[in-house]
């Protein structure tokens, strides 16, 4: 009984630590998409972060000025995917650092 109680406590404490770690590790990414042809902003283009170990982020879209914001992702190495319709047209490796990471402008075809 004592062991079970202790085990339960450890489970709760471990879960809280894990939750805290996941929450604390959240980072925000910002960047801009520009057209490779003339460096003008690429508006309303879908982007997301993807990592084989961490999974994918929700899709974010660039605004009229080409700027995009991806929020609440764990810090680490990712592939920044640029989507057109239902397919990926560009993949760029990036490193996300806490609390905010600015990505160099991405030139999309």
């Amino acid at each position, binding site marked *: 009984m004592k062991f079970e109680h202790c085990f339960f406590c450890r489970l709760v404490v471990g879960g809280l630590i894990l939750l805290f770690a996941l929450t604390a590790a959240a980072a925000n990414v910002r960047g801009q998409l520009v057209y490779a042809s003339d460096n003008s902003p690429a508006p309303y283009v879908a982007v997301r972060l993807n990592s084989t170990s961490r999974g994918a982020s929700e899709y974010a879209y660039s*605004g009229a000025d080409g700027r995009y914001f991806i929020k609440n992702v764990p810090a680490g190495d990712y592939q920044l995917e640029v989507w057109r319709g239902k397919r990926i047209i560009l993949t760029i490796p990036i490193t996300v650092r806490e609390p905010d990471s600015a990505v160099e402008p991405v030139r999309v075809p």
Partner: protein
Amino acid sequence: MRVDCVYMLLILLLPLLPAFVLFRFLPSSSDVQGPFKGLTVKLGGAFAGYFLTVLLSWQVAGSLLAPTWSDNWNVVARITFNDGDHRSPSEALVIVNPPSPNIDSSGLLQMRIPIPRAHNGPADVQRLIVAFNGYETVSVPLDPDNTHLGAYGGLNYDIKFDKTNHQILVGKPIILTKVSE
């Protein structure tokens, strides 16, 4: 007009009950005769009663339910450029006029959009893209399965599909965040 199979089944099956009751307990003397949709119809007995009740139900259901049925059409067109120096046509932002999205001064948004009956993952999900100059662009996945919540940064907008009224209700406000320089 979108034909809902459930309503069609109800219209066809429900009249069986009064037809059965009428001709089980009352003398069977109904007779229907006359032109209908270009054909000459001559029916008698229980089936005549059933036929009349189906016609009546069809009219009543049509008048009551038709306003709630959506009328979505698939538009097929080709976008081309008149010069060689162009970007991908898929980047074109298509706006419907009169505007399909109707946003009143209080910020209430109403619009009609087609939603596929099934999707193959998050890339397939229809999304509202809400963009405003100087604010971060917001994406609202219109996904009844909430598959986007499994991804990092996926926000729960409390999306509900009201199948009775054919409405998608975004339960939480779409908050636009000012871009910090």
